[in-house]
């Protein structure tokens, strides 16, 4: 028999890919149920308006129409969309507007017809009489006296105010050599997964059973929320996340349409499908970021940072989605980055505006934090005339200080920031590129070098860090089938990350079987035990840890059985090459199948042992993991146009041990791309009246291949002590490191002109203006 190779750490082609590259994968819109009706949602063009009346008569009698509902039809019949994060003011969040609309795109009515064309025909016949109200889109204006109030019952637009005071910061400010003050903005972004959202619901009247296919990252949590909103028992609701075309946090949520379509299917007794269009996606799928931060940074003249005092204004939008007010907390907690900063304090003011809700978007609070930390380091270097690399080195948490408790109360698991920085500097040949930069400037070329050393928080995490209904644990079932092949049921819900491959690698190695002998199942609440989902770079570090717990339970059982068959103690046994073998002598073995046969046989070798080979486990992390790294980019700014061109992009990431180098590279690439997009291109723009300007991809600049550089990747490996694999997570790292890295590079390019800071996105026009103004002065 051929030798079964090891898979962990190897370059393994993904198990997911054959169905995806052959066009046979099944996304929500690809699920076909006979008699399915199509839903189209009518949305508000107004950012803020009272609804006087809605005339649906013509729509109801249009060809093919099965139902038309407005907010009035749902009043007191269904619940609202939940927000599970604590906040002072949590408004009722209806499925269809109740008397008032509060953002452009808010759902006002829904039409169900035999197909989407006919549903759209009918939707166009609905007449809504709106009484427009003044709107507010600027979060800093939303709290001013006289601002239009979104939710009258609160009397103002405050969502909540979080204060983490620390008198030590004020002391540091008082005694500092210098206090650097600046304001930076993490602009609002749209996640834009290539597959928009979509829901298909199928009510089975006789069994009182609702099945919902939805494009989500959290099928189980969604099932709980959906059952609650619709008033159904949870064991009568099945949620399936079929193939999911990207999420980036936007599908870590529970949306109006998911409940609405479930309601409609039950009402009509037929399958109902709603597929989001891109305009709806840009207007009504959660946005990310949208934080303004005022910073005061006391420093010593040698570059030592003594503290950070921050005030955040966080734009929550018009309603609160699942985790909306929880996101900014991560920005405050993580804003000290990889630095031993003795004192921090922050205040976060979260406000309602006439915009779509913000919520998690790749990084969720940590990109904002890393941007604060890394812009701070460059600002310190600029103000004190120091090299940005030196400033970072001076403030790094030293390698021997881990586990390190930050002044914000987090405990960093492990880290070696200097090594990652050094490796990146070595790859770019830092002295050489600095010399080249100086030479270029002599010829009127503005070349900039940007460094960002980031740390982020992953593997979320201990449940106490999260709201009660979104716990931090994860589950996994491992079942060795009678033919000695393995089925893994995981509670995470991958949507592009590739855990069907990485989990198969891990399970195959653990049992000494081929990767083809492992099947990984996820995303169906009727098949998979309750789980939490995929977000926060937790799939491997939490979901994988749960997997390994179950793996070892099954291994233990196999070893016990084998030990009776081999007459060797269980702890002397190991799995290799489809056998159970003696650790000390691999030639002494029995076929794995023989042990499995015994486990499933009519007569267990060990009296009293339950037949079968499966185990379910839940891993509750004791702490979070803290991946880190250094990114360096070299850019050139065209002074005639302000256009930024990449000359180099180097990323050194440390995500602990690596299960699949190919997939890690893919995660880092994609993360960098989205981080660069924040730095240079993307911004959700609402005008001052709350009108959405970036309503299509004709205006929202998601980058194409030509707008991004070639990435040069390298790694350092500092295992995490918090999980058996020593992994940290890598799903968001690229996004977190790249944004400040690129902004720092562009600002470095313009440093000779005296430019201090420009807010993102660094559109060419902004740079051109800065260059022009500087040259004028």
């Amino acid at each position, binding site marked *: 028999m051929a030798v079964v190779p090891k898979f962990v750490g190897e370059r393994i082609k993904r198990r997911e890919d054959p169905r995806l590259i052959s066009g046979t994968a099944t996304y929500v819109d690809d699920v076909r149920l006979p008699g399915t009706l199509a839903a189209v949602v009518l949305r508000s*063009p*107004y*950012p803020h308006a009272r609804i006087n009346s809605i005339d649906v008569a013509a729509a109801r009698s249009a060809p093919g129409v099965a139902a038309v509902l407005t907010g009035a039809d749902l009043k007191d019949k269904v619940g609202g969309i939940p927000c599970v994060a604590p906040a002072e003011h949590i408004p009722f969040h209806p499925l269809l507007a109740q008397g008032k609309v509060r953002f*452009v795109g808010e759902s006002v009515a829904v039409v169900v017809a035999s197909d989407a064309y006919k549903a759209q025909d009918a939707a*166009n016949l609905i007449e809504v009489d*709106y009484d*427009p109200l003044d709107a507010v889109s600027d979060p800093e204006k939303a709290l001013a006296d006289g601002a239009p109030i979104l939710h009258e019952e609160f009397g103002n637009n405050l969502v909540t105010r979080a204060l983490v005071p620390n008198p030590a910061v004020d002391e540091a400010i008082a005694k500092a050599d210098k206090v650097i003050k600046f304001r930076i903005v993490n602009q609002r972004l749209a996640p834009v997964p290539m597959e928009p959202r979509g829901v298909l619901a199928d009510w089975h009247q006789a069994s009182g059973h609702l099945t919902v296919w939805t494009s989500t990252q959290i099928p189980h949590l969604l099932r709980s929320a959906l059952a609650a909103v619709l008033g159904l028992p949870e064991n009568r609701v099945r949620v399936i996340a079929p193939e999911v075309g990207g999420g980036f946090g936007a599908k870590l949520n529970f949306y109006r349409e998911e409940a609405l379509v479930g309601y409609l299917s039950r009402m009509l007794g037929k399958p109902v499908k709603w597929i989001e269009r891109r*305009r709806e996606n840009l207007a009504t799928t959660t946005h990310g970021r949208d934080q303004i931060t005022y910073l005061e940074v006391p420093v010593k003249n040698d570059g030592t940072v003594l503290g950070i005092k921050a005030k955040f204004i966080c734009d929550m939008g018009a309603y609160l989605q699942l985790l909306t007010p929880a996101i900014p907390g991560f920005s405050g907690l993580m804003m000290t980055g990889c630095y031993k900063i003795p004192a921090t304090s922050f205040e976060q003011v979260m406000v309602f505006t006439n915009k779509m809700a913000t919520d998690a978007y790749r990084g969720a609070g940590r990109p904002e934090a890393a941007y604060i930390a890394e812009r701070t380091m460059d600002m310190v270097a600029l103000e004190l005339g120091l090299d940005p690399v030196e400033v970072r080195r001076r403030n790094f948490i030293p390698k021997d200080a881990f586990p390190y408790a930050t002044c914000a109360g987090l405990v960093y698991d492990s880290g070696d920031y200097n090594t990652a920085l050094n490796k990146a500097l070595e790859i770019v040949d830092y002295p050489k590129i600095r010399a080249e930069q100086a030479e270029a400037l002599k010829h009127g070329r503005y070349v900039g070098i940007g460094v960002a050393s980031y740390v982020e928080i992953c593997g979320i995490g201990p449940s106490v860090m999260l709201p009660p209904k979104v716990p931090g644990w994860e589950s996994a079932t491992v079942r060795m089938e009678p033919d000695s092949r393995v089925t893994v049921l995981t509670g995470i819900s991958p949507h592009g990350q590739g855990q069907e491959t990485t989990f198969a690698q891990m399970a195959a190695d653990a049992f000494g079987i081929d990767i083809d002998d492992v099947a990984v199942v996820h995303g169906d609440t009727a098949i998979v035990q309750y789980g939490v989902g995929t977000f926060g770079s937790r799939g491997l570090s939490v979901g994988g840890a749960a997997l390994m717990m179950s793996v070892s339970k099954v291994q233990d059982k196999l070893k016990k059985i084998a030990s009776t068959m081999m007459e060797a103690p269980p702890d002397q046994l190991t799995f290799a090459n489809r056998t159970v073998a003696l650790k000390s002598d691999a030639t002494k073995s029995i076929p794995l199948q023989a042990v499995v046969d015994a486990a499933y046989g009519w007569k267990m070798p060990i009296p009293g042992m339950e037949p079968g080979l499966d185990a379910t486990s839940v891993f509750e992390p004791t702490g979070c993991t803290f991946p880190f790294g250094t990114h360096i980019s070299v850019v050139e700014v065209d002074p005639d146009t302000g256009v930024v061109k990449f000359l180099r992009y180097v990323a050194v990431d440390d995500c602990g041990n690596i299960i699949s180098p190919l997939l890690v590279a893919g995660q880092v690439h994609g993360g960098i791309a989205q981080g660069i997009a924040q730095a240079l291109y993307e911004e959700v723009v609402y*005008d001052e*009246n709350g*009108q*959405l*300007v970036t*309503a*299509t991809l*004709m*205006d929202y600049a998601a980058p194409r291949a030509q707008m991004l550089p070639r990435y040069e990747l390298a790694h350092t490996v500092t295992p995490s002590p918090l999980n058996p694999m020593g992994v940290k997570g890598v799903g968001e790292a690229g996004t977190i490191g790249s944004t400040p890295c690129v902004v720092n590079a562009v600002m470095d390019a313009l440093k000779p002109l005296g430019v201090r800071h420009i807010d993102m996105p660094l559109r060419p026009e902004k740079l051109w203006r800065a260059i022009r103004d500087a040259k004028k002065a």
Partner: protein
Amino acid sequence: MKITGEQIMPAPRQRVWDLFNDPDRLARLIPGCEKLDKLAPDEFAGTINVGIAAVKGSYAGKLKLDEIRPPEHYKMLVDGKGKQGFMRGTGVLDLTPRDGDPNQTVVKYSGDVQLGGPLMQVGQRVIDSAAKMLMGQFFAAAEAELKAEAAGAVARQGFFINFWRYLLNVIRSFFRRSS
């Protein structure tokens, strides 16, 4: 969105005022008005059709006048909507004799208008130009009308319809965004 601009009309202020208050004549200057109802002496409702390229739309609107000070000033409040979008806002019109030439009038306009809906969402990159184009057409026609009037031509059409049409053009001019 804010808009300001000015245009010089080749006639004394009173005559420009009269023209801008004479929908009969304004009707000839502005295409697209389908119907107009007078709700009150200073309030109107009507429908217009506007089309650029393949995009055609019908808009219903209400208009209220305020701060009327003949022959130099009024303010208007506009609220119009159609399937393809809405506009909502205020505009101010001021007429002053041109320095040194009482036979010419400076028409100053300023407004603050909100636009929304599908057309604005997909057409934002050209909506400025669309407004400028319509505005330009209007003032060119107004100039021609004033010249023709000076030459003795007589206007024939209904007052309110034309007044409404004129105002709609001014409203359209607010599409010009002050970015």
